[in-house]
């Protein structure tokens, strides 16, 4: 392996800027003449807006405008890539506590915030539904009384036909075989129900955007993971052609899916439209939590097994609390429906998922996309079955896991991983012996996600007159290291040193189209596009060389940055100079990835989650400590092994946060913990005492050099692994998260029929 090329752990190319403070995020950028918007949020969970009194706020110092839903006449006033149900500002009704009702635009953030207190909104309360059960009950108020025109047909798999006259935002069903017959034949049927709480991604840079209009072009700089998707929403709002909306995403301060699709960009854009000035809308963490969260879920599972442990049938019923607006909830639900049952051979399956509108913060994507919810239900059900069947839980999985090439969902790609081998790594690292030890427990779990999203990526490679290289891609850098990995791929393909390659990302006016930066797709799909663009640029170089030298193209070969023929050798800069005359010009290659060839079959790859933990549980307090964490990064080929390890550990740590600490809590109509003090995320002292991070490279992916994606896998099944470990330590199966000390203590007390009121506990 050549240093700096694909396969080596080169340092991040954005590392130096990030440690010196030179790195620029959207929040660091200033535009001359920029005003500041402050969002006035609803103080009701569900109400008609009778009137909004803005006069007093308008009279405050520095205030340029107060924009409300009434001002959006002439615009398409909503957004939403799947269901366009989300008003930019509440139109005549608010549907959750914290919904944007008005935007005060002023010279400084302080002036905007001060004046926001003077906006008076008069409401007429409507009945409130916070849980899906309430929203589905007879006589429940309808959150959306009309169905909305849908987004693009490429989101067809997540499009809903059930929106009208019900609070079900989306229903998804997956079914084959005869589940009832399978369950009738089963020697053992295991039923379980789990509750998965609402999560918040807490990307540390809160949502923010700057918008301005310049010569009829709407320019936006924002924290968007998918600038092209945001562009499309904005073009619809303002009836602009796509070439007149420019969305740029500089470095992003964390995404984890929470910055996918449109968030605050329309607010900044309508403010710029209303004032004729550039406007920044920068939320704080509380505002961000009131923008997007992850779906909570109740999932009921029934699984039937024969006496040897073979799965005969599985049935899942999934209920998502998707909040007031659909956002990406329908797609997250659809993904959960495809991910909950695991990569097992299941002859009979039925999954029904429903995402339900409620008067809560809209939910959307979060790392794992329905897999964490589904795996928690499916994998803990499997572990309970192992107990009942008297079969080792690792063996029960080995019996049922699909083998390489085998399909676990009809008409989908066969398994591009060796799951049994991956599982064996986890159990051997953990020293798994199926013997109970008081206060200690080992758990492991697996998942396979239909990842990669839709295969559509493009990239441009420009070889410049001095031999340096620009790689242009619409894929964003949000910490995962795409800037580095894509540079390594280009350096490898072109045979040039890494420092000659610059990767420019995420500007809808100058970088080529990228559908999304999510679903762990960048290295695999954008990487392929970059590889193809390099190949295109090199064949152009060879054509030029043949032309310049007068030889046949077959006689020209390129290797290690040198284009050579029968009697010549050119470096890239020499050849460009020769062709254009002097030090000028450039050679441009373009690479396209679409659903064709190797990528015809979906998903582009299966993202494997294979993790295990050993925990210690303090029986007196219920406190769970993670003693050992094992992750397996089954990524086909690691373009940069250290970056892969970083993704695995980061994902696992977020998953441990969800398993042990994190939940957004509604008490009545509003969130009681919309901040990072009360919403506790993992800290350094929570680090597992021991971490084993294993990368597996079997070159079985469709991406460059056999790569496939990582970054979500190690999060997806981890809650199930922790729950199983806690169960084996305490003898009680948890059915909900997070497994805080209080919850685990309560589980233990309830199981032993001890009083769980602290006042009644004696000094023992």
């Amino acid at each position, binding site marked *: 392996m050549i240093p700096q090329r694909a396969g080596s752990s080169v340092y991040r190319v954005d590392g130096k800027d*990030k*440690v*010196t403070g030179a*790195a620029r995020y959207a929040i660091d950028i200033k535009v001359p003449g920029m005003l500041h918007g402050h969002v006035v949020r609803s103080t009701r969970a569900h109400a008609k807006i009778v009137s909004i009194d803005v006069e007093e706020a308008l009279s405050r110092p520095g205030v340029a405008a107060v924009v409300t839903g009434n001002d959006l006449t002439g615009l398409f006033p909503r957004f939403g890539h799947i269901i366009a149900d989300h008003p930019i500002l509440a139109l005549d009704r608010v549907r959750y506590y914290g919904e944007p009702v008005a935007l005060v635009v002023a010279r400084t953030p302080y002036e905007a915030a001060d004046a926001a207190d003077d906006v008076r909104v008069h409401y007429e309360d409507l009945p409130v539904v916070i849980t899906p059960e309430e929203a589905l009950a007879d006589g429940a108020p309808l959150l959306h009384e009309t169905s909305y025109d849908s987004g693009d047909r490429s989101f067809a798999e997540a499009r809903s036909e059930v929106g009208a006259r019900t609070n079900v935002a989306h229903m998804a069903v997956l079914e084959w075989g005869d589940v009832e017959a399978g369950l009738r034949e089963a020697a053992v049927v295991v039923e379980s129900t789990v509750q998965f709480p609402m999560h918040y991604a807490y990307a540390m840079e809160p949502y923010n955007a700057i918008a301005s209009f310049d010569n009829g072009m709407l320019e936006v700089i924002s924290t968007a993971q998918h600038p092209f998707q945001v562009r499309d929403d904005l073009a619809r709002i303002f009836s602009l052609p796509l070439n007149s909306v420019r969305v740029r995403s500089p470095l992003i301060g964390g995404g984890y899916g929470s910055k996918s699709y449109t968030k605050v960009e329309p607010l900044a854009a309508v403010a710029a439209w209303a004032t004729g000035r550039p406007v920044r809308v920068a939320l704080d963490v509380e505002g961000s939590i009131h923008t997007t969260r992850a779906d909570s879920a109740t999932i009921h599972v029934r699984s039937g097994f024969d006496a040897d442990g073979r799965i005969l049938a599985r049935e899942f019923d999934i209920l998502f609390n998707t909040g007031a607006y659909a956002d990406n909830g329908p797609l997250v639900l659809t993904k959960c429906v495809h991910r909950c049952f695991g990569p097992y051979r299941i002859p009979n399956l039925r999954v029904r998922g429903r995402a339900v509108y409620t008067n809560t913060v809209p939910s959307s994507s979060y790392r794992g996309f329905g897999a964490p919810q589904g795996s928690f239900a499916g994998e803990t059900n499997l572990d309970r079955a192992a107990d009942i069947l008297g079969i080792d839980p690792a063996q029960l999985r080995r019996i049922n896991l699909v083998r390489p090439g085998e399909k676990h969902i009809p008409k989908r790609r066969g398994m591009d991983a060796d799951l049994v081998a991956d599982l064996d790594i986890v159990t051997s690292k953990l020293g798994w012996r199926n013997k109970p030890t008081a206060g200690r427990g080992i758990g492991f779990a697996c998942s396979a996600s239909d990842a990669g999203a839709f295969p559509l990526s493009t990239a441009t490679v420009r070889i410049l007159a001095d031999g340096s290289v620009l790689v242009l891609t619409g894929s964003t850098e949000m910490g995962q290291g795409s800037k580095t990995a894509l540079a390594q791929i280009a350096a490898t393909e072109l045979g040039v040193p890494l420092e000659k390659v610059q990767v420019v990302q995420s500007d809808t006016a100058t970088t080529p189209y990228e559908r999304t930066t999510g679903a762990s797709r960048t290295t695999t799909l954008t990487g392929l596009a970059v590889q193809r663009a390099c190949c295109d640029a090199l064949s152009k170089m060879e054509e030029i060389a043949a032309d310049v030298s007068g030889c046949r193209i077959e006689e020209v070969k390129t290797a290690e940055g040198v284009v050579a023929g029968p009697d010549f050798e050119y470096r890239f800069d020499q050849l460009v100079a020769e062709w254009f005359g002097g030090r000028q010009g450039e050679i441009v290659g373009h690479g396209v990835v679409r659903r064709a060839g190797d990528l015809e079959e979906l998903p582009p790859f299966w993202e494997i989650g294979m993790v295990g933990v050993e925990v210690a549980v303090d029986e007196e307090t219920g406190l769970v400590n993670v003693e050992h964490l094992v992750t397996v990064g089954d990524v086909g080929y690691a373009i940069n092994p250290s970056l892969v390890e970083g993704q695995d550990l*980061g994902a696992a740590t977020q998953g441990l946060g969800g398993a042990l600490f994190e939940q957004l809590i509604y008490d009545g109509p509003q969130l009681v913990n919309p901040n*990072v003090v009360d919403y506790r995320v993992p800290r350094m002292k929570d680090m597992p005492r021991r971490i084993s991070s294993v990368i597996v490279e079997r070159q079985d992916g469709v991406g460059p050099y056999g790569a496939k994606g990582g970054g979500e896998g190690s999060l997806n099944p981890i809650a199930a692994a922790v729950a199983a470990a806690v169960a084996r330590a305490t003898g009680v199966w948890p059915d909900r998260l997070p497994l805080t000390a209080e919850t685990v203590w309560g589980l233990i007390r309830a199981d032993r029929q001890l009083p769980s009121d602290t006042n009644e506990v004696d000094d023992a």
Partner: protein
Amino acid sequence: MSTVTIDTFVNGQRVTRQVAPRMTLAEFLRDDLGLTGTKVSCEMQVCGACTVLIDDMPVSACTYLAADADSRRITTVEGLAHGDELHPIQAAFVENFAIQCGFCTPGFVMMTAALLAENPAPTAEEVAEYMDGNICRCTGYKPILSAVLDAAERLRGTE
């Protein structure tokens, strides 16, 4: 609106400015001085992203008033490197892959500077205890812990 005059040294340079009484140190650094390396996230003094040094003590610039910085020395992440050469702490963060999105990184780097000034040879437990007020949502902390221990070694080596 009334203002307060502050006279400070920022990264070794004397800075005298009029500031609003309610202006935070983070706003002063970012908006008035253009030192955007200092990041703001939780605004409640629990995430550590905005950590800067005031007279060598780490503070959260999101909740510290600019007016209180009068006659004090402020060091931000921009003040660590010497020209093009990274400070050993910064180099250790890059070389240990202790960075992903980078939004928490300046705070961690400054907190490391404070720790190693107090304790040049911390144990892993001492690092975790000291850094428990800095949140990183990307890395899972292990690479940061390695970077801090590595930085300590590098700094001891230069003395």
